[in-house]
């Protein structure tokens, strides 16, 4: 198992891991390979699209990006120094970005704890109380709103692509932190309305069943019967987005 999967399990949601197949293997073949190796079922992501040139000659190699999207380190294999760097970056990412006025530290702390509404209200109040900080406050506010919007967009994507259960979990968590941020809370409620619609009931039922089947499949990605079960689910719920997702997993049969 690649060390980076272990790292993903160790750090959980604090770090994102993207595996990039770099030998020209097609997406379906990469999917099949990853399934066969039993590497699915973590939060790691798999693609055969290279987002940039790492510049390293051999495989595997890695590029570590900071929370701001800038390259922090690159090389052939992660060293203990890289782990220290990662720890420091995770800690840094949970605070205010560099150069932020200290007056916004509390708001950033709340925001990074998921108290989005509280953070936004704090910045709004600060802007009124200290007009000289209005520009800086507007900048922080824009960052907060953009990050929440990105999360709402992900919920929308999950809903439209056969992950209604995950969409609901994420939305519930997001909405619970949006109290006070009326506009964003309104957007969250709109998405919640879609999730509660009759059309979504069948998707949710299919997603529940597929989730159970995939749990077993990820543990043993070579069991023919499990692939049959996923294929049957795609037939039973034909016409749903979940069925399309099931078909993709069914096609990973070795």
């Amino acid at each position, binding site marked *: 198992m690649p060390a*980076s999967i272990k790292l*993903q399990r160790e750090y959980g*949601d*604090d*770090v*994102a*891991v*993207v*595996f*990039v*197949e*770099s*030998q020209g*293997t097609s*997406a379906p073949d*990469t*999917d099949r390979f990853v399934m066969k190796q039993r590497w*699915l079922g*973590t*939060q*790691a*992501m*798999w*693609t055969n*699209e290279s*987002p*940039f*040139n*790492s*510049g*390293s000659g051999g*495989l*595997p*190699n*890695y*590029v*570590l*990006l*900071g*929370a*701001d*999207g*800038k*390259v*922090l*380190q*690159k090389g052939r294999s992660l060293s203990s120094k890289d782990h220290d760097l*990662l720890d420091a*970056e*995770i800690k840094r*990412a949970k605070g205010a970005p560099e150069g932020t006025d200290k007056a916004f530290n509390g708001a950033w702390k709340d925001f990074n704890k998921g108290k989005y509404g509280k953070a936004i209200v704090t910045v709004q109040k600060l802007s009124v109380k200290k007009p000289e900080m209005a520009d800086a406050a507007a900048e922080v506010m824009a960052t907060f709103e953009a*990050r929440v919007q*990105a999360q709402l*967009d*992900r919920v929308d*994507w*999950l809903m439209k*692509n056969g*992950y209604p259960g*995950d969409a609901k979990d994420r939305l519930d968590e997001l909405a619970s932190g949006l109290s006070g941020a009326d506009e964003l809370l309104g957007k969250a409620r709109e998405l919640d309305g879609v999730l509660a619609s009759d059309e979504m009931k069948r998707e949710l039922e299919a997603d529940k069943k597929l989730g159970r089947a995939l749990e077993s499949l990820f543990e043993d990605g070579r069991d023919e019967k499990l692939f049959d079960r996923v294929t049957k689910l795609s037939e039973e719920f034909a016409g749903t987005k979940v069925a399309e997702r099931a078909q993709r997993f069914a096609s990973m049969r070795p």
Partner: protein
Amino acid sequence: MMIQTIRKSAGALAATGLLLGLSVASSPEGVSIGQEVSYTFRSAPLGGMGVTSLADLKGKPVLVEFWGTR
């Protein structure tokens, strides 16, 4: 004339960029430390749960591992 040619080439390059996904230009030596990178995936990564670009991952560190299946 030359300016038109340059414009056409730039247009073709931009169109190619759109077809191939959007990324920052990186030198043959690859990305360098401190460089900001961005990329929009043509197909959402497997297991990405709605991640469609590197920008979606801003706010947490990202480990990008280049590997092979052969």
